[in-house]
Protein backbone atom coordinates (compact mmCIF):
# COMPACT_ATOMS: atom_id res chain seq x y z
CA UNK A 1 0.00 0.00 0.00
CA UNK A 2 1.08 3.59 -0.61
CA UNK A 3 0.76 5.66 2.55
CA UNK A 4 0.39 9.39 3.05
CA UNK A 5 1.30 10.15 6.65
CA UNK A 6 -0.01 13.45 8.04
CA UNK A 7 1.63 14.41 11.31
CA UNK A 8 5.26 13.78 12.17
CA UNK A 9 4.98 13.47 15.94
CA UNK A 10 5.87 10.26 17.75
CA UNK A 11 3.13 8.23 16.03
CA UNK A 12 3.42 9.61 12.49
CA UNK A 13 7.18 9.26 12.59
CA UNK A 14 7.01 5.63 13.75
CA UNK A 15 4.41 4.74 11.12
CA UNK A 16 6.67 6.16 8.40
CA UNK A 17 9.73 4.36 9.76
CA UNK A 18 8.01 0.97 10.21
CA UNK A 19 5.99 1.04 6.96
CA UNK A 20 8.65 -0.67 4.79
CA UNK A 21 8.91 -3.55 7.26
CA UNK A 22 5.17 -4.11 6.80
CA UNK A 23 5.54 -4.01 3.01
CA UNK A 24 4.22 -0.48 2.46
CA UNK A 25 5.63 2.58 0.72
CA UNK A 26 5.41 6.09 2.12
CA UNK A 27 4.64 8.49 -0.73
CA UNK A 28 4.03 11.60 1.40
CA UNK A 29 4.90 12.74 4.90
CA UNK A 30 4.03 16.09 6.43
CA UNK A 31 4.08 18.00 9.67
CA UNK A 32 2.28 21.27 10.32
CA UNK A 33 4.72 23.42 8.30
CA UNK A 34 6.24 21.35 5.51
CA UNK A 35 6.09 18.05 3.65
CA UNK A 36 8.04 15.67 1.52
CA UNK A 37 6.39 13.92 -1.41
CA UNK A 38 7.67 11.20 -3.74
CA UNK A 39 5.29 8.99 -5.76
CA UNK A 40 7.96 6.26 -5.91
CA UNK A 41 8.42 6.17 -2.15
CA UNK A 42 10.32 8.73 -0.17
CA UNK A 43 13.45 8.52 1.90
CA UNK A 44 11.88 8.58 5.37
CA UNK A 45 15.16 8.48 7.23
CA UNK A 46 16.60 11.54 5.51
CA UNK A 47 13.39 13.54 5.92
CA UNK A 48 13.16 12.74 9.63
CA UNK A 49 16.86 13.53 10.13
CA UNK A 50 16.17 17.00 8.67
CA UNK A 51 13.25 17.48 11.08
CA UNK A 52 15.48 16.29 13.91
CA UNK A 53 17.91 19.07 12.98
CA UNK A 54 15.05 21.60 13.14
CA UNK A 55 14.87 21.90 9.37
CA UNK A 56 11.84 21.40 7.13
CA UNK A 57 10.88 17.80 6.29
CA UNK A 58 11.13 18.68 2.60
CA UNK A 59 10.39 21.33 0.00
CA UNK A 60 6.70 20.58 -0.35
CA UNK A 61 3.84 22.16 1.60
CA UNK A 62 1.46 20.15 3.85
CA UNK A 63 -1.23 20.65 1.20
CA UNK A 64 0.98 18.90 -1.38
CA UNK A 65 1.11 15.81 0.86
CA UNK A 66 -2.68 15.62 1.01
CA UNK A 67 -2.85 15.97 -2.78
CA UNK A 68 -0.17 13.33 -3.42
CA UNK A 69 -0.67 9.82 -4.82
CA UNK A 70 -1.54 7.30 -2.08
CA UNK A 71 -3.91 4.46 -1.16
CA UNK A 72 -4.23 5.13 2.56
CA UNK A 73 -4.20 8.42 4.43
CA UNK A 74 -2.75 8.00 7.91
CA UNK A 75 -4.12 10.90 9.96
CA UNK A 76 -1.75 11.35 12.91
CA UNK A 77 -2.05 15.08 13.55
CA UNK A 78 -2.85 16.22 17.12
CA UNK A 79 -6.36 15.55 18.40
CA UNK A 80 -8.59 18.61 18.30
CA UNK A 81 -12.03 18.97 19.85
CA UNK A 82 -15.23 20.55 18.57
CA UNK A 83 -15.17 20.47 14.76
CA UNK A 84 -12.09 18.19 14.89
CA UNK A 85 -10.27 20.33 12.30
CA UNK A 86 -8.00 20.11 10.43
CA UNK A 87 -8.11 16.32 10.88
CA UNK A 88 -11.70 16.08 9.71
CA UNK A 89 -11.00 17.93 6.44
CA UNK A 90 -8.01 15.70 5.76
CA UNK A 91 -10.28 12.69 6.15
CA UNK A 92 -12.90 14.26 3.89
CA UNK A 93 -10.37 14.98 1.15
CA UNK A 94 -9.08 11.40 1.20
CA UNK A 95 -12.55 9.82 1.18
CA UNK A 96 -13.74 12.12 -1.63
CA UNK A 97 -10.82 10.78 -3.65
CA UNK A 98 -11.95 7.24 -2.76
CA UNK A 99 -8.88 6.63 -0.66
CA UNK A 100 -8.85 4.85 2.68
CA UNK A 101 -8.27 6.62 5.99
CA UNK A 102 -6.59 5.26 9.12
CA UNK A 103 -6.94 7.55 12.12
CA UNK A 104 -4.58 7.96 15.04
CA UNK A 105 -6.24 11.34 15.70
CA UNK A 106 -9.25 10.87 18.02
CA UNK A 107 -11.04 14.10 17.06
CA UNK A 108 -13.05 13.02 14.02
CA UNK A 109 -14.47 9.82 15.56
CA UNK A 110 -14.97 11.30 19.03
CA UNK A 111 -16.63 14.54 17.95
CA UNK A 112 -18.13 13.82 14.50
CA UNK A 113 -18.72 10.09 14.29
CA UNK A 114 -21.83 10.27 12.12
CA UNK A 115 -20.20 12.81 9.77
CA UNK A 116 -17.28 10.41 9.31
CA UNK A 117 -19.59 7.48 8.57
CA UNK A 118 -21.60 9.58 6.11
CA UNK A 119 -18.49 10.53 4.12
CA UNK A 120 -17.37 6.91 4.22
CA UNK A 121 -20.74 5.72 2.91
CA UNK A 122 -20.32 7.89 -0.21
CA UNK A 123 -16.75 6.76 -0.80
CA UNK A 124 -15.04 3.63 -2.06
CA UNK A 125 -12.57 4.20 0.76
CA UNK A 126 -12.94 2.88 4.30
CA UNK A 127 -12.12 4.37 7.70
CA UNK A 128 -10.39 2.50 10.55
CA UNK A 129 -9.36 3.93 13.90
CA UNK A 130 -7.83 1.25 16.10
CA UNK A 131 -4.98 3.53 17.16
CA UNK A 132 -7.36 6.08 18.69
CA UNK A 133 -8.22 3.80 21.62
CA UNK A 134 -5.73 2.09 23.91
CA UNK A 135 -2.56 2.53 21.82
CA UNK A 136 -1.23 -0.93 20.99
CA UNK A 137 -4.23 -2.73 22.48
CA UNK A 138 -6.56 -4.10 19.77
CA UNK A 139 -9.81 -2.85 21.31
CA UNK A 140 -11.82 -1.94 18.22
CA UNK A 141 -10.77 -5.07 16.35
CA UNK A 142 -11.73 -7.28 19.30
CA UNK A 143 -15.12 -5.60 19.73
CA UNK A 144 -15.66 -5.93 15.98
CA UNK A 145 -14.64 -9.61 15.94
CA UNK A 146 -16.91 -10.39 18.88
CA UNK A 147 -19.79 -8.46 17.30
CA UNK A 148 -20.41 -5.04 18.81
CA UNK A 149 -24.12 -5.86 19.03
CA UNK A 150 -23.29 -8.49 21.69
CA UNK A 151 -20.96 -6.22 23.67
CA UNK A 152 -22.71 -4.46 26.55
CA UNK A 153 -19.78 -2.50 27.98
CA UNK A 154 -16.15 -1.65 27.40
CA UNK A 155 -14.26 -0.21 30.32
CA UNK A 156 -10.71 0.21 31.38
CA UNK A 157 -7.71 2.21 32.33
CA UNK A 158 -7.09 4.21 29.18
CA UNK A 159 -4.70 6.95 30.20
CA UNK A 160 -1.12 6.06 31.06
CA UNK A 161 -0.24 9.42 32.61
CA UNK A 162 -3.12 9.35 35.09
CA UNK A 163 -2.40 5.73 35.89
CA UNK A 164 1.27 6.43 36.47
CA UNK A 165 0.38 9.23 38.89
CA UNK A 166 -2.18 7.14 40.81
CA UNK A 167 -0.04 4.02 41.05
CA UNK A 168 3.02 6.03 42.19
CA UNK A 169 0.93 7.89 44.77
CA UNK A 170 -0.34 4.58 46.15
CA UNK A 171 3.03 2.82 46.09
CA UNK A 172 5.14 5.62 47.57
CA UNK A 173 2.61 7.44 49.74
CA UNK A 174 3.40 10.68 47.89
CA UNK A 175 0.97 13.43 47.09
CA UNK A 176 -0.34 14.40 43.68
CA UNK A 177 1.88 17.43 42.99
CA UNK A 178 5.04 15.55 43.89
CA UNK A 179 4.28 12.57 41.65
CA UNK A 180 3.14 14.81 38.79
CA UNK A 181 6.46 16.68 38.89
CA UNK A 182 8.25 13.33 38.79
CA UNK A 183 6.13 12.20 35.85
CA UNK A 184 6.96 15.41 33.98
CA UNK A 185 10.69 14.84 34.60
CA UNK A 186 10.38 11.32 33.20
CA UNK A 187 8.47 12.56 30.15
CA UNK A 188 5.42 10.52 31.19
CA UNK A 189 3.36 13.67 31.73
CA UNK A 190 3.30 16.74 29.52
CA UNK A 191 4.08 20.24 30.75
CA UNK A 192 0.34 20.90 30.68
CA UNK A 193 -1.09 17.59 31.87
CA UNK A 194 -4.74 18.70 32.06
CA UNK A 195 -5.88 16.64 29.06
CA UNK A 196 -4.70 13.48 30.86
CA UNK A 197 -5.34 14.13 34.55
CA UNK A 198 -8.72 15.76 34.05
CA UNK A 199 -9.94 12.64 32.26
CA UNK A 200 -10.54 14.24 28.84
CA UNK A 201 -8.25 11.86 26.96
CA UNK A 202 -9.83 8.76 28.55
CA UNK A 203 -13.28 10.23 27.89
CA UNK A 204 -12.55 10.71 24.17
CA UNK A 205 -11.54 7.05 23.90
CA UNK A 206 -14.69 5.93 25.68
CA UNK A 207 -16.84 8.20 23.50
CA UNK A 208 -15.38 6.48 20.43
CA UNK A 209 -16.21 3.07 21.93
CA UNK A 210 -19.73 4.16 22.88
CA UNK A 211 -20.23 5.23 19.26
CA UNK A 212 -19.08 1.81 18.07
CA UNK A 213 -21.53 0.09 20.45
CA UNK A 214 -24.47 2.33 19.54
CA UNK A 215 -23.72 2.08 15.83
CA UNK A 216 -24.25 -1.69 16.11
CA UNK A 217 -27.94 -1.06 16.88
CA UNK A 218 -28.49 1.37 13.99
CA UNK A 219 -29.87 0.50 10.59
CA UNK A 220 -29.27 3.86 8.96
CA UNK A 221 -27.11 6.96 9.08
CA UNK A 222 -30.08 8.98 10.33
CA UNK A 223 -30.45 6.65 13.28
CA UNK A 224 -26.75 6.89 13.98
CA UNK A 225 -26.93 10.66 13.90
CA UNK A 226 -29.69 10.50 16.52
CA UNK A 227 -27.70 8.39 18.96
CA UNK A 228 -24.09 9.46 18.33
CA UNK A 229 -22.07 10.50 21.36
CA UNK A 230 -19.57 13.34 21.67
CA UNK A 231 -17.28 14.50 24.46
CA UNK A 232 -20.02 16.86 25.65
CA UNK A 233 -22.21 13.84 26.50
CA UNK A 234 -19.58 12.23 28.72
CA UNK A 235 -19.62 12.43 32.50
CA UNK A 236 -16.00 13.17 33.34
CA UNK A 237 -14.13 13.50 36.61
CA UNK A 238 -10.34 13.73 36.91
CA UNK A 239 -7.79 12.75 39.53
CA UNK A 240 -6.43 16.16 40.47
CA UNK A 241 -8.22 16.43 43.81
CA UNK A 242 -7.36 12.99 45.15
CA UNK A 243 -5.25 13.27 48.31
CA UNK A 244 -2.71 10.62 49.32
CA UNK A 245 -4.93 9.81 52.31
CA UNK A 246 -7.66 8.48 49.99
CA UNK A 247 -5.22 5.99 48.47
CA UNK A 248 -4.00 4.96 51.92
CA UNK A 249 -7.53 4.30 53.15
CA UNK A 250 -8.24 2.32 50.01
CA UNK A 251 -5.06 0.27 50.47
CA UNK A 252 -5.96 -0.58 54.08
CA UNK A 253 -9.04 -2.24 52.68
CA UNK A 254 -7.22 -4.16 49.92
CA UNK A 255 -8.26 -1.68 47.24
CA UNK A 256 -6.76 1.08 45.18
CA UNK A 257 -7.97 3.93 43.00
CA UNK A 258 -7.79 3.93 39.21
CA UNK A 259 -9.08 6.40 36.63
CA UNK A 260 -11.59 4.12 34.95
CA UNK A 261 -13.51 4.98 31.81
CA UNK A 262 -16.61 3.07 30.83
CA UNK A 263 -18.57 3.03 27.59
CA UNK A 264 -22.00 1.45 27.42
CA UNK A 265 -25.09 2.06 25.31
CA UNK A 266 -26.27 4.36 28.10
CA UNK A 267 -23.28 6.64 27.67
CA UNK A 268 -19.81 7.39 28.91
CA UNK A 269 -18.46 7.89 32.41
CA UNK A 270 -14.88 8.56 33.42
CA UNK A 271 -13.72 9.01 36.99
CA UNK A 272 -11.62 7.70 39.83
CA UNK A 273 -12.98 4.33 40.98
CA UNK A 274 -12.20 1.97 43.83
CA UNK A 275 -10.89 -1.30 42.43
CA UNK A 276 -9.48 -4.41 44.15
CA UNK A 277 -5.74 -3.99 44.64
CA UNK A 278 -5.01 -7.21 42.80
CA UNK A 279 -7.94 -7.00 40.43
CA UNK A 280 -7.94 -6.89 36.65
CA UNK A 281 -8.13 -3.12 36.42
CA UNK A 282 -5.26 -2.36 38.83
CA UNK A 283 -2.53 -2.15 36.21
CA UNK A 284 0.47 -0.12 37.34
CA UNK A 285 2.61 2.56 35.73
CA UNK A 286 1.71 3.74 32.24
CA UNK A 287 0.12 0.42 31.31
CA UNK A 288 -3.46 0.37 30.01
CA UNK A 289 -6.12 -2.28 30.26
CA UNK A 290 -9.44 -2.80 28.56
CA UNK A 291 -12.26 -5.03 29.79
CA UNK A 292 -15.04 -6.10 27.44
CA UNK A 293 -18.40 -7.45 28.67
CA UNK A 294 -19.86 -9.79 26.08
CA UNK A 295 -23.26 -11.45 26.07
CA UNK A 296 -21.85 -14.92 25.45
CA UNK A 297 -18.10 -14.66 25.97
CA UNK A 298 -18.47 -13.08 29.42
CA UNK A 299 -15.66 -10.79 30.50
CA UNK A 300 -12.49 -10.39 28.46
CA UNK A 301 -9.47 -8.29 29.32
CA UNK A 302 -6.55 -7.09 27.23
CA UNK A 303 -3.67 -5.20 28.76
CA UNK A 304 -0.81 -3.44 27.03
CA UNK A 305 0.90 -0.19 26.22
CA UNK A 306 -1.62 2.54 25.68
CA UNK A 307 0.71 5.13 24.22
CA UNK A 308 4.11 5.51 22.57
CA UNK A 309 5.17 6.01 18.97
CA UNK A 310 5.95 2.45 17.90
CA UNK A 311 3.18 0.95 20.04
CA UNK A 312 0.51 3.15 18.50
CA UNK A 313 2.06 2.76 15.04
CA UNK A 314 1.57 -1.01 15.38
CA UNK A 315 -2.17 -0.37 15.68
CA UNK A 316 -2.14 1.99 12.67
CA UNK A 317 -0.32 -0.61 10.58
CA UNK A 318 -2.73 -3.34 11.72
CA UNK A 319 -5.54 -1.16 10.32
CA UNK A 320 -3.63 -0.69 7.05
CA UNK A 321 -3.37 -4.49 6.83
CA UNK A 322 -7.17 -4.75 7.17
CA UNK A 323 -7.46 -2.62 4.01
CA UNK A 324 -5.30 -4.85 1.83
Amino acid sequence: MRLCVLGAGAVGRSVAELAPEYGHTVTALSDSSSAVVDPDGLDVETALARKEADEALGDASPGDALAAEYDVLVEATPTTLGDAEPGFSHLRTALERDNHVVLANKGPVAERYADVRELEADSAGEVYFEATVGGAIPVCATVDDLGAEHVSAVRGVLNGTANFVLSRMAAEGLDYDHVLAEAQDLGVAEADPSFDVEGTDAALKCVILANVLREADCDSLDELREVEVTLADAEVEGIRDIPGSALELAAEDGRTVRLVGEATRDGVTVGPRLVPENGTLSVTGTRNIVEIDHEYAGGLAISGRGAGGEETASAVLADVARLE
Partner: protein
Amino acid sequence: MPSESTPAPGEQPVDSDETAEDAAETDGGHETELQAHTIRLELVDEPGQLLAALKPIADNGANLLSIFHERGSLTPRGRIPVEVDIECPPDRFEGILEDLRDRGVNVIQADAEEYGDEVTLVLVGHLVDTDLSDTLKNIQDCSGASVADIDLSAPAGAGSSAHSSARLRLRAHAGETASVIETVREVVAEKDIDVIAPLEGRR
Protein backbone atom coordinates in the same frame (compact mmCIF):
# COMPACT_ATOMS: atom_id res chain seq x y z
CA MET B 1 -41.84 -23.91 32.56
CA PRO B 2 -45.17 -25.71 32.70
CA SER B 3 -48.02 -23.51 33.80
CA GLU B 4 -49.37 -23.90 37.33
CA SER B 5 -52.25 -26.27 37.76
CA THR B 6 -55.58 -24.48 37.60
CA PRO B 7 -58.58 -25.44 39.71
CA ALA B 8 -61.10 -27.66 37.98
CA PRO B 9 -64.29 -25.90 36.83
CA GLY B 10 -66.63 -25.31 39.74
CA GLU B 11 -63.92 -25.80 42.36
CA GLN B 12 -63.92 -22.67 44.52
CA PRO B 13 -60.76 -21.55 46.31
CA VAL B 14 -62.91 -20.78 49.37
CA ASP B 15 -60.31 -21.67 51.99
CA SER B 16 -57.70 -19.08 51.21
CA ASP B 17 -60.22 -16.21 51.30
CA GLU B 18 -61.49 -17.12 54.74
CA THR B 19 -58.01 -17.59 56.16
CA ALA B 20 -56.95 -14.14 55.01
CA GLU B 21 -59.94 -12.47 56.66
CA ASP B 22 -59.37 -14.32 59.91
CA ALA B 23 -55.74 -13.31 60.03
CA ALA B 24 -56.60 -9.66 59.42
CA GLU B 25 -59.04 -9.61 62.30
CA THR B 26 -56.60 -11.19 64.74
CA ASP B 27 -53.79 -8.83 63.80
CA GLY B 28 -55.74 -5.61 64.16
CA GLY B 29 -57.25 -6.62 67.52
CA HIS B 30 -55.12 -5.07 70.26
CA GLU B 31 -53.17 -1.85 69.94
CA THR B 32 -50.80 -2.46 72.86
CA GLU B 33 -49.84 -5.92 71.73
CA LEU B 34 -46.17 -6.81 71.59
CA GLN B 35 -44.66 -7.64 68.20
CA ALA B 36 -42.22 -10.44 67.59
CA HIS B 37 -39.05 -9.70 65.60
CA THR B 38 -36.08 -11.67 64.42
CA ILE B 39 -32.72 -9.90 64.32
CA ARG B 40 -29.62 -11.40 62.77
CA LEU B 41 -26.34 -10.04 64.11
CA GLU B 42 -22.71 -10.79 63.55
CA LEU B 43 -20.33 -10.69 66.50
CA VAL B 44 -16.58 -10.55 66.85
CA ASP B 45 -15.28 -13.75 68.49
CA GLU B 46 -14.34 -12.18 71.83
CA PRO B 47 -15.60 -12.75 75.37
CA GLY B 48 -18.52 -10.60 76.45
CA GLN B 49 -19.64 -9.74 72.90
CA LEU B 50 -22.92 -11.61 73.11
CA LEU B 51 -23.83 -10.01 76.42
CA ALA B 52 -23.03 -6.55 75.02
CA ALA B 53 -25.28 -7.24 72.06
CA LEU B 54 -28.17 -8.25 74.28
CA LYS B 55 -28.02 -5.23 76.55
CA PRO B 56 -29.82 -2.83 74.15
CA ILE B 57 -32.65 -5.33 73.96
CA ALA B 58 -33.12 -5.38 77.72
CA ASP B 59 -32.60 -1.60 78.04
CA ASN B 60 -35.42 -0.93 75.60
CA GLY B 61 -37.83 -3.12 77.51
CA ALA B 62 -38.04 -5.92 75.00
CA ASN B 63 -38.57 -9.58 75.88
CA LEU B 64 -35.92 -11.96 74.73
CA LEU B 65 -37.61 -15.01 73.26
CA SER B 66 -34.66 -17.03 72.00
CA ILE B 67 -31.03 -16.83 70.97
CA PHE B 68 -29.50 -18.98 68.31
CA HIS B 69 -25.76 -18.65 68.59
CA GLU B 70 -24.07 -20.35 65.64
CA ARG B 71 -20.62 -20.58 67.13
CA GLY B 72 -19.42 -23.18 64.64
CA SER B 73 -20.14 -21.17 61.49
CA LEU B 74 -18.66 -17.86 60.39
CA THR B 75 -20.02 -15.03 58.28
CA PRO B 76 -18.06 -14.08 55.11
CA ARG B 77 -16.26 -11.50 57.24
CA GLY B 78 -15.07 -14.12 59.72
CA ARG B 79 -17.57 -13.20 62.42
CA ILE B 80 -20.08 -15.29 64.32
CA PRO B 81 -23.73 -15.13 63.23
CA VAL B 82 -26.30 -14.83 65.99
CA GLU B 83 -30.05 -14.92 65.56
CA VAL B 84 -32.16 -13.28 68.25
CA ASP B 85 -35.95 -13.48 68.59
CA ILE B 86 -37.51 -10.69 70.63
CA GLU B 87 -40.87 -9.27 71.44
CA CYS B 88 -41.48 -5.54 72.02
CA PRO B 89 -43.98 -2.71 71.51
CA PRO B 90 -43.95 -1.61 67.86
CA ASP B 91 -42.43 1.81 68.61
CA ARG B 92 -39.41 0.34 70.39
CA PHE B 93 -37.97 -1.79 67.62
CA GLU B 94 -36.13 0.91 65.67
CA GLY B 95 -34.54 2.18 68.90
CA ILE B 96 -33.17 -1.28 69.61
CA LEU B 97 -31.59 -1.50 66.16
CA GLU B 98 -30.10 1.95 66.56
CA ASP B 99 -28.60 1.09 69.96
CA LEU B 100 -27.14 -2.10 68.55
CA ARG B 101 -25.48 -0.20 65.71
CA ASP B 102 -24.23 2.47 68.10
CA ARG B 103 -22.46 -0.26 70.04
CA GLY B 104 -20.73 -1.41 66.88
CA VAL B 105 -22.83 -4.54 66.49
CA ASN B 106 -23.47 -5.35 62.84
CA VAL B 107 -27.13 -5.93 62.17
CA ILE B 108 -27.28 -8.13 59.11
CA GLN B 109 -31.01 -8.55 59.03
CA ALA B 110 -33.94 -7.22 60.98
CA ASP B 111 -37.13 -9.09 60.10
CA ALA B 112 -37.57 -9.01 56.36
CA GLU B 113 -35.25 -6.04 56.02
CA GLU B 114 -32.07 -7.56 54.77
CA TYR B 115 -28.87 -5.70 54.08
CA GLY B 116 -27.77 -8.10 51.40
CA ASP B 117 -25.10 -5.96 49.74
CA GLU B 118 -22.13 -4.16 51.05
CA VAL B 119 -20.36 -1.32 49.33
CA THR B 120 -17.18 0.51 50.25
CA LEU B 121 -16.73 4.17 49.27
CA VAL B 122 -14.05 6.77 49.86
CA LEU B 123 -15.18 10.35 50.46
CA VAL B 124 -12.77 13.18 49.68
CA GLY B 125 -13.22 16.81 50.71
CA HIS B 126 -13.31 19.05 53.75
CA LEU B 127 -14.92 16.28 55.75
CA VAL B 128 -14.26 17.49 59.28
CA ASP B 129 -15.04 21.14 58.65
CA THR B 130 -18.33 20.27 56.97
CA ASP B 131 -19.57 18.19 59.93
CA LEU B 132 -18.86 14.55 59.18
CA SER B 133 -21.51 13.17 61.51
CA ASP B 134 -24.14 15.28 59.79
CA THR B 135 -22.87 13.97 56.45
CA LEU B 136 -23.15 10.38 57.65
CA LYS B 137 -26.63 10.99 58.99
CA ASN B 138 -27.72 12.47 55.66
CA ILE B 139 -26.25 9.48 53.86
CA GLN B 140 -28.19 7.03 56.05
CA ASP B 141 -31.42 9.02 55.89
CA CYS B 142 -31.40 9.55 52.14
CA SER B 143 -29.92 6.33 50.78
CA GLY B 144 -31.61 3.81 53.06
CA ALA B 145 -28.24 2.15 53.55
CA SER B 146 -26.65 1.83 56.95
CA VAL B 147 -23.11 2.93 57.71
CA ALA B 148 -21.40 -0.23 58.98
CA ASP B 149 -18.07 1.43 59.69
CA ILE B 150 -15.92 4.40 58.85
CA ASP B 151 -12.21 5.24 58.82
CA LEU B 152 -11.18 8.87 58.66
CA SER B 153 -7.84 10.20 57.56
CA ALA B 154 -7.35 13.92 58.06
CA PRO B 155 -3.55 14.25 58.23
CA ALA B 156 -3.65 18.04 58.08
CA GLY B 157 -6.26 18.39 60.81
CA ALA B 158 -9.39 20.52 60.94
CA GLY B 159 -9.36 23.99 59.42
CA SER B 160 -6.68 23.04 56.90
CA SER B 161 -7.12 23.74 53.21
CA ALA B 162 -5.93 20.18 52.46
CA HIS B 163 -8.57 17.57 51.72
CA SER B 164 -9.27 14.76 54.13
CA SER B 165 -10.58 11.31 53.24
CA ALA B 166 -12.91 8.79 54.80
CA ARG B 167 -13.53 5.18 53.91
CA LEU B 168 -17.12 4.11 54.44
CA ARG B 169 -18.57 0.64 54.46
CA LEU B 170 -22.29 0.77 53.73
CA ARG B 171 -24.83 -2.00 54.00
CA ALA B 172 -27.40 -1.69 51.28
CA HIS B 173 -30.47 -3.70 50.49
CA ALA B 174 -29.81 -6.41 47.93
CA GLY B 175 -29.67 -5.03 44.39
CA GLU B 176 -29.69 -1.39 45.48
CA THR B 177 -25.95 -0.73 45.49
CA ALA B 178 -25.95 1.36 42.33
CA SER B 179 -28.78 3.61 43.50
CA VAL B 180 -27.18 3.96 46.95
CA ILE B 181 -23.94 5.17 45.34
CA GLU B 182 -25.91 7.59 43.19
CA THR B 183 -27.76 8.97 46.23
CA VAL B 184 -24.56 9.32 48.27
CA ARG B 185 -23.00 11.32 45.42
CA GLU B 186 -25.97 13.69 45.37
CA VAL B 187 -26.12 14.07 49.16
CA VAL B 188 -22.45 14.90 49.66
CA ALA B 189 -22.15 17.11 46.56
CA GLU B 190 -23.82 19.86 48.60
CA LYS B 191 -20.71 19.97 50.75
CA ASP B 192 -18.33 19.73 47.78
CA ILE B 193 -17.35 16.22 48.77
CA ASP B 194 -16.26 13.83 46.02
CA VAL B 195 -17.06 10.13 46.09
CA ILE B 196 -14.67 7.46 44.89
CA ALA B 197 -16.90 4.45 44.36
CA PRO B 198 -16.38 0.98 42.97
CA LEU B 199 -17.74 0.28 39.51
CA GLU B 200 -21.45 0.27 40.09
CA GLY B 201 -23.46 -2.89 40.10
CA ARG B 202 -20.51 -5.11 39.34
CA ARG B 203 -18.52 -7.65 41.34
